[in-house]
């Protein structure tokens, strides 16, 4: 018989070991899945994890790692702040879209004027847009006690409709031969989020993500606001007794996560994506939830998790094209990662005991 025994306090070792165990378990069971689909499991796993980094075309894939990893990390850092306090922003995807619309809109408003002030202005607009979009569920929760999970999630669909409307209306490229979508910001130098070092994938979004990681690390470990966030997540009553104002904390966490998601959207639209279009968003906002938990809500862990998720995206694409694995199998593979992470999480607080111990 297997029993779970509660540890006197959470194990520090296990909180680092479980993400690694989860990755290993995902490889094993994912390999079994690929084998069941008639593919060589070892080749499939190697294609996903090895090919992008050290394969023949790694010069092309490595920059992709930063391009895909940066928005994931940027969004996940913000989400983790809220998650640590028990504030569940599930609508980062919507904040990402609104940030992109506001950022692109601010830039396109000046087209074709060239000025070094345009890009910083776009950054501000993107951040503000995402922040305000996230403050809607925040305000409703503080004022009326609504559930931020539902409201933030539903606002994703509102944002998607807004995106479609912008692509077809206000921001539509007047010289686009009637096709939906805005002007391409990559062809507007003042607004282009270009690579800082060519062919590295290093754009301003990567810089922003690194700053966010450092900022949130310092906030959580050294600042009283970060302490307030952690106590609120651990014991809300104790936090209130300690002097935390719950309403202010909710607004800060939602606003900050929206701000970072908005930034991610703005850097994406001004750089790798280039334009506002109906299918601009590809789910970074939702994947970032996985990244946040995979990284144990820890800023440094999130960097590792963001890069790992980016790797499975890129490797998954390669596996699809080279081995003919169905896209659904790749998604199952990514889902397994979260599943194992959450399942193994129990080891942090519990110890597994084998054998028939007496009932105590």
């Amino acid at each position, binding site marked *: 018989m297997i029993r779970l025994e509660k540890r006197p306090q959470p194990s520090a070792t296990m909180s680092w070991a479980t993400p690694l165990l989860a990755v290993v378990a995902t490889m094993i069971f994912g390999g079994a899945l690929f084998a069941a689909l008639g593919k060589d499991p070892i080749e499939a796993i190697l294609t996903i994890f090895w090919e992008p980094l050290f394969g023949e075309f790694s010069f092309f894939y490595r920059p992709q790692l930063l391009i895909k990893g940066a928005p994931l990390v940027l969004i996940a850092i913000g989400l983790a702040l809220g998650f640590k306090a028990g504030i569940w922003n599930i609508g980062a995807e919507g904040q990402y879209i609104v940030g992109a619309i506001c950022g692109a809109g601010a830039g396109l408003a000046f087209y074709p004027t060239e000025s070094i002030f345009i890009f910083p202005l776009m950054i501000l607009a993107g951040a503000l847009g995402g922040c305000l979009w996230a403050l809607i569920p925040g305000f409703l929760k503080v004022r009326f006690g609504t559930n931020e999970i539902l409201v933030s999630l539903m606002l994703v669909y509102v944002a998607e409709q807004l995106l479609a409307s912008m692509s077809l209306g206000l921001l539509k490229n007047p010289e686009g031969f009637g096709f939906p979508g805005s002007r391409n910001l990559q062809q507007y130098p003042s607004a282009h989020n270009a690579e800082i070092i060519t062919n590295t994938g290093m754009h301003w979004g990567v810089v922003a993500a690194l700053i966010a990681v450092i900022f949130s690390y310092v906030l959580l470990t050294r600042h009283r606001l970060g302490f307030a966030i*952690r106590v609120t997540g*651990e014991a809300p009553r104790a936090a209130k007794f300690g002097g935390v104002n719950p309403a202010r904390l909710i607004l800060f966490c939602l606003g900050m996560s929206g701000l970072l998601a908005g930034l991610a959207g703005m850097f994406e639209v001004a750089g790798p994506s280039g334009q506002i279009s109906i299918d601009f968003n590809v789910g970074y906002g939702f994947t970032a939830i996985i990244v946040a938990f995979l990284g144990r809500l820890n800023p440094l862990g999130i960097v590792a998790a963001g890069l790992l998720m980016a790797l499975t995206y890129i490797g998954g694409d390669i596996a699809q094209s080279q081995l003919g694995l169905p896209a659904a199998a790749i998604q199952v593979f990514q889902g397994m990662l979260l599943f194992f992470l959450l399942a193994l999480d129990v080891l942090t607080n519990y110890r597994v005991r084998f054998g028939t111990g007496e009932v105590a």
Partner: protein
Amino acid sequence: MTTPLLSLSGLTKAYPGVVANDTVSFEIGVGEIHALLGENGAGKSTLVKMIYGLVKPDSGLMKMHGDDFAPVDPRAARAAGVGMVFQHFSLFDALSVAENIALGMEAPPPMATLASRISEVSENYGLPLSPDRTVGDLSAGERQRVEIIRCLLQDPKLLIMDEPTSVLTPQEVDILFETLRKLKAEGTAILYISHKLEEIRALCDAATILRGGKNVGTCVPRDTSAREMAELMVGSTLATPKGAAHATGDVMLSVTGLSAASPSAFGMALKDISFEVQAGEVLGIGGVAGNGQDELLGVLSGELPCIPGMVQFQGRDLSGIGPEERRGLGVLAAPEERLGHAAAPDMSLTENAMLTGMAREKLSKGGMLNWARARDFAERIIADFDVRTPGPHNAARSLSGGNLQKFVIGREVLQRPEVLVVNQPTWGVDAAAAASIRQALLDLAAGGTALVIISQDLDELMEISDRFAALNEGRLSAPVPTAGLDVEQIGLMLGGAHGMEVAHV
């Protein structure tokens, strides 16, 4: 010689790192009220859990009426005639008395039959209780009656009671004792666990004293003084807290016409409460839990809002000032619930020291936290208040209740408050630790701090407070000097026994 009802011989139970019971033996006779005494961690709970079938002994024998008795689970223990009333009630607030009782039965009879049996038992034993009342509306004493009646319906031969009087007013205690004496007269044995030695002297026929898991002695409570029993429990002589507090006349905290709604559905609203506390004075607020204690502490600590002018510190209005700013001014508080309210369970003691020490111990500067100072502060609390833990990096929940209580009280006391409000300072703490906590509070008062002590332990309040007031149904009686008060008067101040009558045997 007659066969005892229950005899225990050589019971031993070890947990990793600690022997909870070490070859404990004693006997309980038919119709005997037997007290089980001991400090926290002496092994009382483990022992009764073995009798009630919740824990299996490692070795040793139990015999019931001379036959082997080894219950595998509480159901088996109940079938053998053992009933237990726990210290913490397991009742559903939203259900009626009868529904709650039915939930605890193996095969509940139809509701109507059950209701009439409840009424019958409650009348027989002088425990007035209406079967259709909602438990959420009952007082703590009435809730306890639900638990007792639940046991009595099974006709137990042995009734185990764990700290039954900690939630009762003196009058309710009298009623409970009448009931227990009636049960005894009918031949039911009672195993009675309590810290209150005077009660044990009044009620029990025999007492077994546990210390460190061992049976260290038996006595006849009637012929033994409370002090002697306490010293047997602790294993050393006890120091009585000595107060040298003098009220100076400077009013530190004044509460005028305070009314406030409770944040929870089954809470108690505060109604028109007024009092003043002077520097160096200890105001004791007695009353049964659930009469507004949590709400009063919340308003004074700043967690709950109040209308301007109702709460003043040195003449300064405290409304709109949160807990953190109040600490800055010198108004500190220690809530009753240790885990989750006074301390965050999964966070380390250092982090918990940071929780309330930030302002006064200068643990942060410009928003940045100084963890080295917080750890020093935590280490100081651990050293000064004899908190038993390997170190400040340990999680709060890894401490035993008494040790965590010493930590959360010590954390506030060491911050040299101007005003300190404490709810249940020694709840669940053993005699020696309780004495040291009380001494620390008295020392604080001697240094000029105004203290408000909210407690259900009347002996404690009589011992340390200068003035006494009773909190009942959200109202506070006018404070009166403690000197010269007797238990009877206090009982009346506490609102009597909620309209009950003593059982007529």
